[in-house]
């Protein structure tokens, strides 16, 4: 029983990282209509830059984490300025942004590979908070606590921001039609850039937390998050970030419990099994109206 509770905590912490990543991914998909496959590399660069600051420059972990998050956000803004905005201006359709995002993915991934090298690294022991905390009979690592807290804060803030603020109204208007939004006085350009920054920065946060939780930094970090985040968005839907976040947490719990009680080799297989099952059984529930969408 104690083991189950402990594993549940571990699963929720792991799932929180997936959920955070899924939130940013869903934001870009829902509000900008871009399936951004480069989203994983934002997380990778968030983790890599904060790791570099801590390990090579001796910067305090918390400051390094903030810089890493901001750096990831900046990459998101840059991608939008250099690739997605010109496509939007040309009305380039649905495939063009996917292909552009694959281009960004290649660039950022190969630069991450060159920057980080083939080996995985870990944060210097002294630099990061690592003393486990006892809560009741459970042992909670600081990284786990941070992941869960970060998820709660981000979900609350982003949800309120999108649904209760003027900025949220602007985002919704721009996501339907940037030109009409401009007519009613919304600065579409700035709103889209803000969304791009927010989504990429949340990915950076997920990347920092993933690296910190596993104490493992490598250039492939974001790729694993990408698949889990994608699964969460598909199953949970992307209209409401709370759906994607809840499914992200569920995937984490499922993974930890299945590797504890079934087999660790099947960990990924189970996640993808659920993903395929939902795709096949309930596509209309989540994605309906396909034939009504004009090309």
């Amino acid at each position, binding site marked *: 029983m104690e083991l189950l509770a402990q594993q549940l905590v571990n699963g929720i912490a792991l799932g929180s990282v997936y959920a955070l990543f899924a939130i940013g991914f869903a934001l870009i998909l829902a509000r900008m209509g871009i399936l951004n496959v480069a989203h994983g590399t934002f997380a990778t660069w968030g983790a890599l830059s904060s790791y570099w600051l801590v390990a090579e420059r001796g910067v305090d972990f918390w400051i390094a984490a903030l810089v890493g998050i901001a750096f990831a956000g900046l990459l998101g803004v840059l991608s939008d300025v250099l690739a997605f905005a010109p496509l939007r201006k*040309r009305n380039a359709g649905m*495939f063009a942004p996917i292909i552009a995002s694959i281009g960004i993915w290649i660039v950022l991934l*190969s630069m991450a590979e060159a920057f980080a090298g083939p080996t995985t690294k870990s944060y210097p022991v002294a630099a990061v908070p690592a003393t486990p905390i006892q809560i009741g009979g459970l042992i909670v690592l600081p990284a786990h606590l941070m992941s869960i807290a970060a998820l709660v804060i981000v979900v609350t803030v982003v949800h309120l921001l999108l649904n209760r603020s003027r900025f949220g109204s602007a985002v919704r208007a721009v996501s339907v039609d940037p030109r009409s939004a401009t007519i009613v006085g919304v600065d579409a350009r700035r709103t889209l850039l803000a969304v791009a920054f927010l989504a990429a920065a949340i990915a950076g946060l997920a990347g920092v937390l993933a690296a910190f939780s596993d104490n493992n930094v490598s250039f492939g970090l974001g790729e694993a998050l990408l698949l889990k985040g994608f699964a969460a968005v598909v199953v949970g839907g992307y209209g409401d970030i709370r759906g994607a976040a809840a499914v992200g947490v569920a995937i984490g719990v499922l993974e930890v419990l299945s590797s504890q009680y079934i087999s660790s080799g099947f960990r990924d297989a189970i996640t993808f099994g659920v993903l395929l099952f939902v795709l096949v059984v309930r596509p209309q529930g989540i994605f309906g109206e396909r034939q009504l969408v004009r090309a």
Partner: protein
Amino acid sequence: MSTTAWITTLQFAGVNALFALSIYATLWTGVLSLAPIFFGAVGAFTFGYLAGTVGLSPFLGLVLGVVLGAALGALTAALVIRLDSHYLAMATIAMVLIGRVLVVNLTELTGGAAGTLVPGELGTWLWLIGCLVVAGYVLARLAKSRFGMAADAVREDAAVAQTLGISPRRIQLVGFVISGAFGGAAGVMQASFLQYIGPDTFYTHLGFVTLAAVVLGGAFHWAGPIVGAIVFTILPELLKDVMGEYDRVVTGVLLVVIIIFVPRGLVDLRRVRLLRARSRQDPPRAGDDSARPTAPQEVTA
């Protein structure tokens, strides 16, 4: 580069062209899919396993790759064709990523992380060009058929195609079957040239390069992917001397630049026709936007 290095590079350009044609086959019907890489992996590893255990002849291996690929294409279509285009693209990318998990974990069949050796009898120019000619011929014939016209219609606007009595799903299913057959063949050819296949042989990098090839060459004519694959395989080799390990960065940047500035690719018959029509008419009037003779989607609103 030495002559042998050039020949090897050109051979891989040919295999990439076969993969690119496989991606083109679904893109023609309005579906962006990276599933061909997965089909190629299945074809190649099946070929490798059967050649190693029961001594399957290479030719039968190629046939098996085509049949298996086509069947998988139909199966994939049945599973994913209902999805919204974003989800569909991502689902096929997921297939590629899952493919690697399968290769690493099914050690008995695939050799796991160590990979497996494959006989190289098919790794000759004759077989490669043969495959490309057959694929090109099939696509060229289809382009002039009722299927080709229907595919064009579905790609441009599935809703309108449906009102014309075309079933978009059926057209896309056929696209997936063709894509699967080409992908399976490309996988077997790739394995024959390399003579060794591992978890990373059929992975994202191959997917990137072939998709980039289709985009660069042009996704509106079957010759586009072939031209694109040749350019896109040779270019990084040339750049390797200058750029070192950053040659892939150039691939990525090129992909973005092409999709923004030449969205219809290098092989674009419509642009040729428009230019020809323009030169027949009077010289352009003052203020005529002659700098942009291409696609209507390029006309800024």
